[in-house]
Structure formats: structure tokens, C-alpha cells
């Protein structure tokens, strides 16, 4: 089944727009751009919009995907230009296309983050050491409460790099089942360095399928 899909960036001031509010925002942006998308029937119609992997509040991304169904409007090629300029600051549509692949095929995502630990030295080595050990356990809040999980099997290609007063992490993490979030990576780094992080900013770079092919 072919789906209309678009790829967008969420960064800058838009990082605190919640998942639900993001849906409303896109719904209005389509209207502002003069594009008709499919709505549900019934008393309180809402638009058919699905986001691939919900992005936590405060995290940037350049690989967000949104499924919709264009009922009337321009071609998918022209859509990004029509939508950009009708969106809040920090949200930019990069491209739109028809895809056959379901979001459930997304298995991995690549992210990068910068964390500062004032006064701490050589954080990169400490982080590298922790991720070279047998396990990396963090407390994770799930629907059932708080539990400890070992995230090591779900993190690969982790490369830490020293930056002034902190560390830059780039890693490929499990996107779904389980989802390894920037909070989990931050918690692990804090354990490694032995201090709380001050400034933290993560950015999702890319999503992949199970075979590490870029997902589209």
C-alpha cells in the first residue's frame, strides 16, 4: 500500500512542541498551504496523520517522518515548498514521496548529542570505558513504572569525542522495541563521568531498517 510521506526537520524553538500539538500544527499547515488531506468521518473529524517514532520533548531531529493522505492539492514534489513558510519556526519539510514501507520496519536510529559536565576531564574516555564493559544499566521509566535495563545490546557504533567541558556522543540506537532515548544515553554518560550533565542537546540524524539501510 502506498502512503504519502514527508521528511521534516524539528529543531531550534520547535523542540518543545509536543507530539499531539505537532499533529495539530501540521493539520493547520496543510490548510494554510491550500492542501486537502484526508480526515476521519463522523461527528468530530480529525486528520489522518501518523508520525514514525515520537520524538521526545527537547530533542532535535532531521529525520522525522509523517504519513498523511493528500486528497487534493499540488504534487508531492511541490509539497515541501508549499508547506515551508506555513509552519512554525524550527520545522522544515525536506521532501515528500510515496512509500510502501511501514514505520514498524524502522529498527535503528542514529543520533548525536553534546553534554557538558563542568569541571570534568576527558569524559570521552570514561564513556568509552563504560560502553566497553559488560553491561550499561540505566533506570528507565516505562508504562509499568521504573525499571533497570541494560542498554548495551541496543547501542552500537558509539563514538564519544571530547569537547570543551564535555563530550559529544554519536551512536546508533534501537528505535523501537525497545526505544533507547537520549535520556537513556544521558543517564549512562552521567554514570560514566560520575556527575550530572548541565547542558544537553541531542539530534536524531537518520533512521534505518533492520539491515541498516536508510529507511524511506
Amino acid at each position, binding site marked *: 500500500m502506498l502512503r504519502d510521506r514527508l521528511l521534516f526537520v524539528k529543531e531550534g524553538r*520547535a523542540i518543545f512542541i509536543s507530539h499531539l500539538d505537532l499533529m495539530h500544527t501540521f493539520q493547520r499547515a496543510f490548510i494554510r498551504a491550500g492542501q486537502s488531506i484526508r480526515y476521519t468521518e463522523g461527528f*468530530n473529524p480529525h486528520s489522518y496523520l501518523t508520525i514514525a517514532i515520537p520524538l521526545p520533548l*527537547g530533542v532535535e531531529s532531521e529525520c522525522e517522518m509523517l504519513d498523511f493522505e493528500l486528497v487534493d492539492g499540488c504534487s508531492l514534489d511541490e509539497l515541501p515548498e508549499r508547506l515551508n513558510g506555513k509552519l512554525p519556526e524550527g520545522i522544515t519539510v525536506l521532501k515528500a514521496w510515496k512509500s510502501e514501507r511501514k514505520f514498524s520496519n524502522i529498527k535503528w536510529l542514529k543520533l548525536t548529542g553534546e553534554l557538558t559536565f563542568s569541571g570534568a576531564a576527558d569524559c570521552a574516555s570514561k564513556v568509552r570505558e563504560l560502553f566497553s564493559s559488560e553491561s550499561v544499566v540505566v533506570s528507565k521509566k516505562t508504562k509499568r513504572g521504573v525499571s533497570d535495563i541494560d542498554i548495551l545490546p541496543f547501542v552500537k557504533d558509539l563514538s564519544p569525542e571530547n569537547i570543551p567541558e564535555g563530550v559529544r556522543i554519536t551512536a546508533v540506537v534501537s528505535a523501537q522495541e525497545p526505544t533507547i532515548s537520549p535520556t537513556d544515553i544521558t543517564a549512562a554518560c552521567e554514570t560514566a563521568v560520575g556527575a550530572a550533565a*548541565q547542558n544537553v542537546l541531542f539530534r536524531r540524524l537518520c533512521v534505518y531498517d533492520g539491515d541498516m539501510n536508510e529507511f524511506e
Partner: protein
Amino acid sequence: MQINNKLRNILPKVQKPARYTGGEYGQIIKDPAACDIRIAFCFPDTYEIGMSNLGMRILYGLWNDMPGVWCERVFAPWGDMEDKMREAGIELFALESHDPVKDFDIVAFSLGYEMAFSTVLDMLDLAGIPIRSSERDSLRPLVIAGGSSCYNPEPIADFIDLFIIGEGEEVNPEITELYRTAKKENWKKDEFLCRAAQIKGIYVPSLYSVEYNDDGTVRAITHEAGAPAQVDKRIILDLDEAYMPVKTIVPSTSIVHDRVVLELFRGCIRGCRFCQAGFIYRPVRARSKDLLIEAGKKAIADSGYDEMTLSSLSTSDYKQLEGLCDGLLEWCEPRKVSLSLPSLRADNFSMSITERVQKVRKSGLTFAPEAGSQRLRDTINKNVTEEDILNTCRTAFESGWSSVKLYFMLGLPTETDEDVLAIAELVSKVVYVWRAHATNKARGFHITVSTSCFIPKPHTPFQWERQISMDEYMARVALLRGALRSKSVSYNWHDADTSRIEAVLSRGDRRLGAVIESVFRKGGKLEAWGEYFSYARWEEAFAETGLDMDFYASRERKKDEILPWSVISDGVDVDFLWSEREAAYRGVITPDCRHGCAGCGASSMLKGGVCDA
């Protein structure tokens, strides 16, 4: 823009962080280097409340239309955010640029509700601006205020440099241009304020001094040479020619009123004697329906909103309402945009209008009879009969509506227990009408009765009245509650203590400045919210300053008493207000303006002197 580190660190730890970031679609971003005037438009309540405010939408667009002027928005942070900001050393900033408010040229507060006064002080303090005018020597920042609460500006006269009385579409640019000249030519603040006082509609409190009698009433209000003896409000004569916002900021988050607002007309023909808005917005001036239809279409297309509301004090009195609804619905229906009409009267309620409007989405019906007995409705000049109310409910129920909200006040002048019980009798008659006429009984039925405590407001015929005490109010609430028996009826009543403080502030004088400051220093802010309001704080503040709440709220004013707000004029003659009060006590109604001019005086503000009633 990237949010700075300090702010980005605290945002994940507070509720609804997106309300502090800015960046919304429709926000105005200008190049600061190309602007010589920076205005911080401060709404003394939360983002969600402020962004729903029509005045804010109008003035934001109006000011930003001026070349070289950049107007940005500032809202009151919620308690959790304010605590984190103070902890992190982040001063109050404007949403668009994130620049600190204290660096702006003009800090402008929108005052629509007296309970916001302590929030004004809190925002000034959080901005790092001295709260008292006397402590601010330089021209910058100039702290100004506008809005309906400015019709009695006295309680916060010590904190605001100048007040704008009336409608801002013309006077706001005038005062801004004067400021621009002052800044360029390096005027002293005093010099600027004296010149500003010459502009019609500008009230500069520091040019007036107040003396008090031993009994606490005002002995005299004296003005300095050059300041006007009376400040007349500004109005727009032709609403069709005036600035009207079409493009607005569309929040990325949900707010109270997520919709396009079309302002149909200003003023009101009804003359209900308790209603301040009905008097201060006179004379009646309407917009033409064709202009409104075009504006409505553009606003929906530009915003992407799927709801539009027609706004005025009494929408069913708009002369071209049917034509307007037809024109809008023709466009709205195929686009699934719903149209809502609040502020409908129960006497000329037209089912045909409401049916068409509710075709897209159905919402509840609300009416405000205000008093339960005809006698009391006549006294307050709310000329709605029981027959009107019941006929309206009947048509509504026949058309399938199954819920109705009815608003009343307790504590109106001349009210007796019989009048209170008459509310319950009226409600039971409405229930009976439902039983007899509802077409869709399976849906069940619900009436919500809501009572607020009457607050005497300045510039109304009841500005001399006393407010009943909290005990008296609660006794009447209990009486009504006992009489409302039906399971289909729920009853909500406004808090007695907030109503009392609002009554104190509404008719307060300058001495209350010390009380408000004391309340703020004790942590008072966001007092329209139950989470923050504390009656005890006000009691302490009054005790400290030696002033008495009863003096302000519960005291009947004498006819010849100099009222603290007497310098401010809304165009309606005080003699007219007094004669309306006398008519109230004789139980005599004054027909609405459309039935014949009652001579309130406001028409003299119009060219040619005839009002659009």
C-alpha cells in the same frame, strides 16, 4: 533561533514548556538594527489566556505595522517556571527575540481584570524593572497600560507611568510617535509625560494628586497646570476604516480560544445597569457585514483554524446578523469550519440562525437572565421576560438541544430572598418545558446554573451600590442550593472571597497601591487562579496598611462623593448614571437604544452625534 542553554536546561522541567519559547506561525520577527522602538506587550496572565485575547491580537498587529517599531509578546510565567527562572538568574524576556524586557523602550500592560494587578508587579519585578514609577528616572523603559480596568486606574496609579483610556487604534501610534521624538531628542521623562498628557485619551497619574477627608472619602483631586481636568476616552469613529487584524499568530500549542475571532461591533444598546462593558464601549459602532465576511475568509485561510467566533457584547443585536451568517456559512460549511455565536440574548434568539450555525458542530447554549424574578430583572434593566426565556428554551429543546447553561448574579441591589428563590422557580419551569417539548428525550437533559456575586463597577448606574458581604452571599447560595432539587440541574457558584477582592479593587483609590505591593511581596500573583489566590494575604496587607476592605467593597457611596475615577470619562454623563440608578429603585425600565435614545451622552463623541443603535 536556538534557545540559549540556560533556558533550554530549565524548560524540560516545567509544565507546558512550549509556551515560553515563541516561534509560532504568524509571529512577527524584525531586525532589531532596523527598529528604533522596541515594545514589550505584557499580558498579566498565562500564555493560554493572553493569546486568546482579542485586544492583544489587534494591538500586536497594529504596532508591528508601524515602520521601525517591533512589538513582542510577554506573558506571566506559571509558578514553576518563575521559580526556575529566578533560581537560574533568567529575567523576564519577550517571546519573539528572547531579549530581556528591561531593555525595551515601552513596556505595555493589557489590563482587563483587576485580579491581574499583583501579576503586573510580579512581571515588572521578574523583569528587573523597579515597580514604582517614582523609582524609574529615565524615559526607558516607559511603563504604560491600557484596557478596560484602566477606567479606574487609581489602585495601580503608583506603578504605571501613563494609562491609555479607550480604543488604541489611533492613540497607540500617537503616543509611540511622541516617544520616538522624545527618544531622538533626549527629552527627560517628566517632559515627555507632560507632553503625553496633551494627547486625548492619555492619563498621567503623576500629574494628579488626591487629598482625603477624615472619613477616607476623596476631598479633592487636583491636577497640575497643563494636565487636563478630565481625560476623555478615545474611540474609533468608523470601524470599517480602522485597523482590523486578519493575520494572527497561531499558537503551536492549544490555548483557551483556538479560533478566528471576528469583532462585529463595539458598544451595546441594552443598558443593563450592572454592566460596565455596556457603558464604557459606547457609543455603538458596527462593522459592515461584507467586510467581516471577507476578513473571516482570509483569516481562516491564513491561520488554518477550523473554527470562527463572532464576538461582540450582544451578538444577536447585530443588525446584519442573518446576512453575515449566510455569507460566512456558505463558505464555512464545505470547508468544515464551524461558526460559533456566544453572547446571544434569550429574547431575540432566532432559531433559524442558531440552527444553521450549529450545523457543522453542535455546542451547548448559554443565556444570562442574571435575576430570577421579573421585578429584579426590571431593576437591573435586563429586559428579558420569563416568557422569552421559556420560549427560547422550548425552541432549543424542540431542535434537539439537551443542555443549557443559565447565568445569574446574587447580591444585586434590592434583591430579596424571594428573588433568589425565583431563580429556582424559573429553572424548574425550564425543566418542565424540556419534559413537554424535547424531541430527543433519550439524550437526557442537563441545566447548569451558575451564580456570581454582584460587584458594583465604576461608570455604571450601580457604581454607588454596596456589595453584599461574603456571609450574605453564601447564605443566598445556600438558599438557592436548597431550592434546586432536580437531578438534571447542577449549580456552580463563584467564590465569595475572590469576588470581594475584585470589588475592593474595582472601586479602589490610590492608597490601595501599598496594599497591592504588599500582596505581591508576600508572593501574590496569578490571582485569577485558584492555585494562587490567597484571601489571607489580602487581609494581612490591609491590616498592615491600616485600610479597610469594607470601606471599598461594602460601603454605599453618596451622590455627591468625589469618586476616585472621576477624572476618567467614557462619554456617558454621570447624571444619566444617577437617574438610571433612581429608575432602578423605582423598578422602572429604560428601553434599549434602538427603541429610542435615552440620552446617555455618548453620542456626542460621534461626528454628527448619532449613534448606530
